[in-house]
């Protein structure tokens, strides 16, 4: 029996246990492209309008987020630009989520040991996972590319773009496969994957704004360098992600050979033999379990927001350099002021929406960990103590809320400080941080949603993620797609105000969202008091 015996069997098992999630990701991403395509092709239905897109407000500034997309005067280029944010995060997250699930998670639960005892080679599970998920990435890329064609984009460009999307996914399949061999827990694999996504995204953003070579060290940058819809389109950068993918997978196989099943390469350390008084309280234990997670998210938010903030001056310069806009704004210090009002404030608001998305994602991850408390039997033991169910949930909620505040606070300060330093104007620090507070009710709604689902039907807690995904896509794509404002108001992140820095928040929406969030929280407490533990 060779180490690769049973790859087919393992692929079959992985497909049977995971096809729903797999399909949801592929269909979800292609659907976003279809949505983008149908709105954009209706909005920009003439060459003149398309030409206007390239010259429109903030096109250059948005390079920080979307990269420098070639061919912005073609429909394909516009679509690629609008899809940029989804691509930047959703595609790597898809690769990380699926690869972790089929490698480290399987090992962590001990299921893999069971299989390896049967006629399955040691390398087969890893090979099967990589094969299956890499195929899924290629299918996703092909689907995204194919979805562009019916709207009238150049088919060759769409093919190039689709392959570039697949390439970005492949890189992160490789990253995750290798990371899963180094650390022992799925959570740590996630941490490594997300951190590298962020680094790659930031490098591309800075590189794009400065038009420097930095884009070449970022897999995100390689997508742009294909210039799928540009006049100078080229195929060869598509080889870069494939080479990196192959190298990372080979590295994963080598690393796998050097460790035991269930173990990692990094050995854990010893720990203190007694629990401190603080750790013995509900609140202390809940904080202990969350603190590394909070630190990771806060670090990520700080890095992302600091980079965005420190690019503020460059964004203003880019706008002033734009011949049409520059003329419109005039010259001199007043022009800078007007540019700041016109471009910078909405830009900062967009960054704050991103920060709120990060906070909400953290909240959902943290609330999801309650489900693990229940599945592991720890909740049962905790509730066999003289402690009411609310006495368990309350401290946990408090910790998650505090964690979200830390992530948001650190992120907003980093954004504000970065902008203030870049523009040489301290007022921005207060302005940005203050405006960021307007997003808190939106985050509260997701905390409430997570808690309510945990209290009533924990089995479907994933619905909270579905709601988040819809809200996130609408928040990011909605304004550009010219969607009706009642639809935009359905996403809490825009309902609080579409430009919170420039125009301030919508007090009525803040009130409604706060009340909604609190009602959902209360529902969570009521539900948990009434239901069976573990849930039936």
């Amino acid at each position, binding site marked *: 029996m060779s180490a690769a015996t049973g790859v087919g069997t393992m692929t079959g098992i992985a497909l049977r246990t995971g096809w729903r999630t797999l399909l949801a990701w592929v269909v979800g991403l292609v659907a976003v492209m279809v949505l983008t395509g149908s709105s954009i092709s209706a909005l920009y239905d003439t060459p003149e309008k398309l030409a206007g897109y390239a010259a429109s407000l903030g096109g250059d500034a948005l390079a920080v987020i979307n990269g420098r997309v070639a061919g912005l005067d073609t429909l394909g280029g516009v679509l690629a630009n609008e899809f940029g944010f989804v691509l930047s995060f959703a595609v790597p997250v898809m690769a990380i989520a699926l690869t972790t699930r089929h490698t480290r998670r399987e090992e962590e639960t001990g299921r893999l040991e069971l299989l390896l005892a049967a006629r399955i080679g040691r390398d087969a599970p890893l090979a099967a996972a990589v094969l299956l998920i890499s195929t899924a990435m290629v299918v996703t890329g092909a689907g995204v590319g194919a979805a562009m064609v019916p709207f009238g984009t150049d088919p060759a460009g769409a093919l190039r773009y689709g392959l570039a999307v697949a390439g970005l996914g492949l890189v992160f399949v490789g990253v995750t496969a290798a990371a899963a061999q180094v650390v022992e*827990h799925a959570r740590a694999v996630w941490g490594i994957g997300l951190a590298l996504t962020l680094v790659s995204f930031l490098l591309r953003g800075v590189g794009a704004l400065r038009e420097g070579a930095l884009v070449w060290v970022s897999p995100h940058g390689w997508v742009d360098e294909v210039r799928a819809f540009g006049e100078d389109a080229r195929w060869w950068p598509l080889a870069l992600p494939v080479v990196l993918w192959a190298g990372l997978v080979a590295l994963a196989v080598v690393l796998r050979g050097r460790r035991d099943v269930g173990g990692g390469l990094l050995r854990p350390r010893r720990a203190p033999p007694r629990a401190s008084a603080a750790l*013995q309280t509900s609140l202390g234990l809940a904080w202990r379990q969350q603190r590394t997670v909070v630190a990771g998210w806060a670090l990520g938010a700080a890095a992302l927001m600091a980079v965005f903030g420190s690019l503020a001056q460059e964004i203003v310069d880019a706008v002033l350099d734009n011949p049409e806009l520059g003329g419109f704004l005039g010259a001199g210090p007043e022009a800078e002021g007007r540019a700041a009002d016109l471009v910078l404030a909405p830009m900062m608001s967009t960054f704050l929406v991103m920060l709120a998305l990060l906070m909400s994602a953290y909240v959902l991850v943290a609330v999801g960990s309650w489900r693990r408390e229940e599945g592991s039997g*720890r909740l*049962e033991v905790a509730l*066999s*103590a003289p402690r*009411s169910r609310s006495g368990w949930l309350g401290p946990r909620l408090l910790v998650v809320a505090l964690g979200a505040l830390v992530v948001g606070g650190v992120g907003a300060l980093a954004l504000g400080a970065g902008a203030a330093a870049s523009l040489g104007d301290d007022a921005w620090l207060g302005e940005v941080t203050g405006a960021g507070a307007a997003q808190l009710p939106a985050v509260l709604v997701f905390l409430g949603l997570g808690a309510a689902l945990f209290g009533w039907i924990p089995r479907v807690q994933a619905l909270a993620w579905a709601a988040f995904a819809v809200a996130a896509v609408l928040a990011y794509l909605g304004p550009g797609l010219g969607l009706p404002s009642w639809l935009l108001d359905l996403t809490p992140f825009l309902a609080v105000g579409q430009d919170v820095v420039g125009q301030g928040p919508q007090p009525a929406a803040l009130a409604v969202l706060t009340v909604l969030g609190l009602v959902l929280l209360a529902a969570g407490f009521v539900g948990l008091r009434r239901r*069976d533990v573990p849930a039936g």
Partner: protein
Amino acid sequence: MTTSSDRLVEISGLRKTFGPVAALDGLDLAVERGEVHGFLGPNGAGKSTTIRVLLGLVRADGGTARLLGGDPWADAVELHSRVAYVPGDVTLWPGLSGGQCIDILARAHGRVDESRRADLVERFDLDPTRRARDYSKGNRQKVSLVAALATDAELLVLDEPTSGLDPLMEEVFQQVVRERREQGTTVLLSSHILGEVEALADRVSIIRAGRTVTTGTLTDLRRHTRSAVRAVTDRAPALHDMPGVGDVETVADEQGRTEVVASVEPDAVGRLVGALHDAGIHTLTVTPPSLDDLFLRAYAGHDERVDAR
């Protein structure tokens, strides 16, 4: 007759369904103060569900359950200060050390006796500085046990507490439970390890498919079960149609010496031995039913109480 204040657990006609599955279907259980009560049944019989109802984790659909004289659901918080619970398969906090887990769990169970805690860590041979994620299954189980046994709870509820323990540790566990019983602690012990139940339990309840099949002391249970008899006699004994005697098989050689195999109910032993004596006993063994036989018969759907009538 015991008064109900001496009855720490009192369950009658308990029902619980999960969707289409009836996990409990009219279950009865009574645990008296000061006893170790063995709680047995095949996989999926409803042992863990019963325990969860008792701890107010799961709400029953019908029947009554009383814990320490209170309502396990409504009075959960007050009752839990007097109870310690060890679930069968708890995953500890992976990032914390074994010692930290013990402190956190013990704090949940009630007041910790520090000297007892130290003693138990020593006897169970635990390294409290190892992280829980690096423990073997047996060591994880020991952490849960130490945490519960170190408290001064009135009632210990143990759900398959020794799965994964090696024989040496199993022995330690039994000693500790005996000591606790001497001190007056009551124990409800769900287990699949028959030897452990035999060694510890004053009374047992056997359940199957959510219903109590039999309950009583082990002697009681034995009393309702046939012993195996093997004998060699000079002549063929007259055993036919003797009440309380069954499964008779006889093999005789040329000289008329007869080998006899039969099963006998406890109250017919005298009659049977008399008949064998009349036939001239050479050798005689009477083997009481092993506990395994007893459980296997009960698990397989043999209601001993009905049978004994």
